[in-house]
């Protein structure tokens, strides 16, 4: 058997059990209106129970049948270096993936996988719409062999007897790091706010006599106690979620690959090639800036919007100390010539502040108008939004910055959530200069840079400068001009 090929293989028989539960859950979620109808409708107890049971049994049988067909028909192999996956009975599909087009390979194990000793293999390309090569349940040995064969097929290396280099740990997250991460999660604050708001509104829901009695007893001491308790509860939830998701996180560098592993109940192992990294995003909410750390997302072309920042990135590093950011970024982007906190960063145009304040005033005025329209005089409270939005806008403007260096595009913005993006210029796919009506009024424009899987907007600059940047970035990268060969 050649080292860059595998014969046709099937999923592990345990895949039926592993896949049946999530498919059943998906069926229930998709068919909840029908199930609700079954529950709510009346009729003869005997006949409705029998017919309801028959319908549910039929749906479950359909799910079981599809799961069995999936197991019986799915085959995969590596043939002449390409991964081929075929499946389906009535609608047959064969998918061929060239190893050079693979952005990252992920090995995931949820609770069911761990109980059965199996692993899910996800092979992603830059098409960006779904996981292109999904093998839902393989044995660990088969999965590791497949990953190794794909890697050898890509490199054209026949000798598999050579030992793989020991990965070098770049970042390892400790328990205390996860506590810091969970305690500063944005959802903690939101939970706390919601809980406090619901608690304070509870007096409106009670009968008048009880509400009056509660109000007299609701002293500020009681309020503080409840607030602390609520926040503590919210914090505990945030910390618990961080531990469950990011337990044992490590980011390792092996040859020209980054390997990220994490997870307590569901483990996740992602391998990215350095040559496929499109951009690096450094995320620092205000609490985390105070706590002295940030989260780092390393994105490849396979990045999709999977519902939230953490879901979309291929490698998400939850905790990186602020002092260590440049080292981590330099590993993900070896050719970077810009630091995360770079002193050469340029500010947006001064008129941008006035444009932002004008836009903020217009949108706030519209909200105030809606509030007055719906709530009458009580809607005057919405006027408080004006000073809040003005302050927020000024703070956001203060944090904005941008820089175009010979190798990188750098942009930064946001006060409550500071996002710093570093893009390799050799990855730029297309560029847009956008001028909205307000921007034209102030003589401003924005440059948007598209890379594979993402789109990044720079802070506003003068219109002339925006077009000058477009001309600068549309050319070939400095790397290509220098004749520097890109590895991987």
């Amino acid at each position, binding site marked *: 058997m050649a080292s860059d090929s595998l014969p046709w293989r099937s999923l592990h028989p345990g895949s039926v059990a592993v896949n049946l539960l999530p498919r059943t859950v998906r069926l229930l979620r998709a068919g909840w209106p029908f199930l609700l109808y079954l529950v709510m409708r009346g009729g003869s107890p005997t006949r409705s129970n029998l017919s309801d049971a028959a319908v549910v049994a039929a749906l479950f049988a359909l799910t079981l049948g599809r799961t069995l067909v999936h197991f019986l028909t799915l085959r995969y192999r590596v043939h002449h270096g390409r991964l081929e996956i075929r499946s389906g009975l009535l609608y047959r599909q064969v998918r061929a993936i060239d190893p050079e087009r693979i*952005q990252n390979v992920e090995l995931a194990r949820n609770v069911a996988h761990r109980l059965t000793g199996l692993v899910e293999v996800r092979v992603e390309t*830059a*098409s*960006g*719409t779904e996981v292109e090569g999904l093998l839902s349940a393989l044995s660990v040995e088969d999965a590791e062999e497949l990953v190794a064969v794909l890697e050898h097929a890509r490199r054209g290396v026949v000798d598999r007897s050579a030992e793989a280099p020991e990965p070098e740990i770049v970042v390892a997250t400790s328990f205390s790091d996860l506590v810091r991460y969970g305690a500063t999660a944005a959802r903690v604050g939101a939970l706390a706010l919601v809980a406090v708001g619901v608690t304070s509104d509870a007096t409106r829901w009670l009968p008048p006599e009880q509400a009056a009695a509660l109000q007299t007893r609701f002293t500020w001491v009681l309020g503080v106690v409840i607030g602390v308790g609520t926040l503590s509860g919210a914090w505990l939830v945030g910390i618990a979620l961080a531990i469950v998701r990011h337990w044992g996180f490590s980011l390792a560098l092996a040859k020209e690959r980054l390997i990220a592993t994490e997870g307590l109940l569901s483990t996740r192992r992602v391998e990215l090639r350095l040559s*496929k990294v499109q951009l690096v995003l450094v995320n620092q909410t205000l609490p985390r800036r105070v706590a002295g750390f940030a989260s780092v997302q390393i994105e490849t*072309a396979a990045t999709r919007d999977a519902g939230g920042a953490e879901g979309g990135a291929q490698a998400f590093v939850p905790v990186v100390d602020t002092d260590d950011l440049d080292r981590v970024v330099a590993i993900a982007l070896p050719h970077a010539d810009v630091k995360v906190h770079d002193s050469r960063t340029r500010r947006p145009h001064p008129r941008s502040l006035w444009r932002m304040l004008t836009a903020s005033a217009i949108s706030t005025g519209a909200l105030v108008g809606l509030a007055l329209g719906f709530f009458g005089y009580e809607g005057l409270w919405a006027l408080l939004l004006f000073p809040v939005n003005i302050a927020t806008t000024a703070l956001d403007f203060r944090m904005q910055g941008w820089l175009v260096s010979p190798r990188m595009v750098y942009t930064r913005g946001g006060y409550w959530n500071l996002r710093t993006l570093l893009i390799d210029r*050799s*990855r*730029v*796919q*297309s*560029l*847009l*200069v*956008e*001028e*909205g*009506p307000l921007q*034209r009024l102030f003589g401003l424009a924005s440059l948007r840079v*598209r*890379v*594979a*899987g*993402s*789109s990044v907007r720079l802070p506003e600059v003068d*219109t*002339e400068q925006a*077009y*000058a940047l*477009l*001309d600068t970035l*549309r*050319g*070939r990268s400095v790397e*290509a001009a220098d004749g520097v060969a890109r590895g991987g």
Partner: protein
Amino acid sequence: MSQAEPIELLPLAPRARWVFHAQALWRFVAFWVPVTVLGGFAGAVAFSAFWAAIVAGVWLMLMFLLAIWYPSLAFDRWGYALREGDLLIARGVVWHTVVAIPTHRIQHVDTHQGPLEQWFGLARVAIFTASGLGADGVIPGLTLEAADALRDTLVRASVGEDDGV
């Protein structure tokens, strides 16, 4: 566009203006009329039938005038230029946008013809890179021959190049 480096943009085919108007009128009939009528009924039930009718009538008149006037503006604002190394597309009435697509980044180029476009002998060109965010640039209202020629030119320019992925 930049004053420092004026670029001559090629316009769309003249008869594309009729396609723009036809599409706008179709949107008015197929979308705005039913939506406004439904909204008017809802307003009549929730508030006042008289005022709901007035508001709905004024809104429909505004949408109709926009359908008559706006497409010509949009047509005049659309232009493109194939430069050395990139394709430039400018468009937008309220929101001006200029897209620059380096030719060495182009993954594939599609030409589309809807029923209206087929009737007028026109086609729309959509250019895709590896951004994965849909078409990076669209040029509507080209004659079929011009669309095919542009597509072939762009694809030839991108063959064998590094796609940056």
